[in-house]
């Protein structure tokens, strides 16, 4: 547990010191949302709003997470390998990326409501779905970036490998957001959607924890 904390702190410090990476992602989110604003103006159709929101967040997540195993050189990776257990490495990376993803998500939610208005989303479905979904997207992409980092051409491979893996989660998130457009959503429907998203999250995390040691060692 202490190891995990230290590793998260290390990632955080690294992010603060190499500020260009985080700034780049923030600017990326801002500029895509601004481009959407220029193209659409205020969005009246709620389904379009939801689709654009998740697509932008997905690509921001790809950009943010893809560097998580890349920014460190292979010799420094070897150094971590001797220090930390693979379990705490993957957990720390997943927690860190989830936090990053939540910040990005909240930021783009804010920018969306400033530039394009906010559709009336039912909060008891949208907020938990958003939290669970961000965690799931971040964990899945962390694992994919670990896979992609072990092979040559990273950027293209990350997109090819990651897209099919995150798609079921993304479809469920869009579905949950569209359901939350109703004024009142029944508890049963909420439970069904959230448990499906939670189940996928759980499967991703369990698989990542089991399989990461095979990726970590040389």
């Amino acid at each position: 547990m202490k190891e995990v904390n230290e590793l998260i702190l290390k990632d955080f410090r690294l992010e603060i010191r190499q500020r260009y990476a985080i700034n780049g992602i923030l600017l990326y989110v801002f500029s895509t949302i601004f481009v959407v604003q220029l193209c659409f103006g205020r969005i009246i159709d709620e389904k379009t709003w939801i689709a654009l929101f998740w697509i932008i967040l997905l690509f921001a997540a790809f950009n943010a997470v893809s560097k998580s195993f890349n920014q460190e050189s292979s010799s420094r990776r070897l150094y971590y390998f001797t220090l930390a257990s693979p379990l705490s490495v993957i957990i720390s990376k997943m927690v860190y990326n989830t936090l990053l993803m939540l910040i990005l998500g909240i930021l783009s939610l804010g920018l969306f409501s400033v530039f394009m208005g906010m559709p009336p989303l039912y909060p008891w479905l949208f907020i938990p779905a958003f939290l669970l979904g961000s965690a799931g997207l971040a964990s899945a992409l962390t694992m994919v970036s670990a896979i992609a980092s072990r092979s040559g051409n990273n950027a293209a491979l990350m997109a090819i490998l990651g897209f099919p893996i995150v798609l079921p989660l993304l479809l469920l998130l869009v579905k949950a957001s569209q359901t939350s457009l109703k004024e009142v959503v029944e508890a049963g429907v909420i439970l069904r959607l959230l448990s499906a998203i939670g189940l996928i999250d759980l499967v991703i995390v369990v698989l990542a924890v089991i399989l990461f040691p095979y990726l970590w060692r040389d």
Partner: protein
Amino acid sequence: MIKTMWWKFLGVFLVLYSIIAGLLIDVPALPVIHQTIRNLFYHVPMWFSMFFMLGTSLVFSVRYLSGFRMKDDLIASGAANTGLFMGSLGLLTGMIWARFTWGDFWTNDPQLNGAAVSMMAYLAYVVLRGSIDESAMRARISAVYNIFAFMLLVIFLGVLPRLADSSLHPGKGGNTSTMEGLDPLMRMVFYPAAIGWILIAFWLLQLHNRRRALVQGVKLNNQ
């Protein structure tokens, strides 16, 4: 010869039987589908054999990760390739059918999208294998991705269709012709067709593996 090859003969026999009997038997007259219901004998077994191949691929990937024998990696990748082949046959037969029943080669349907994305995941597996040069590393990394890809397949088949409200696809929710209501005479052709094509797929896998083993110099048997 009979001792080791009986299942190949059985596969060929069952497939021939299903092709001939599938065109000859009387099928129930259903609205919209009419005679195209015969596609059940040719389209659905392709998906069945794809699942069996991808399942085999998963099993051998797990076996590779527990023992690191190159033989297991060879079979895992061969099974994924054979599964992709059967899956593309399934897509093709389905698309031809859809053109004449729904009027279009492709519709935005949960069943079709799930199939397409699962195929994409396995194509990504093939690309991933191509991008790593060192063979032990390639085997290890791609085995990990293979397990993820199979998880995706299970989610697309087990979780998402249950959450979808309706589907155009026969045998799925919101459609009148479900598998439970399948005509008993059609069952007599459909089940042998499915078993036959699965056996043929395993035969294909065996041939594929033998060729690849010769090329790569990996021993398949322990003789």
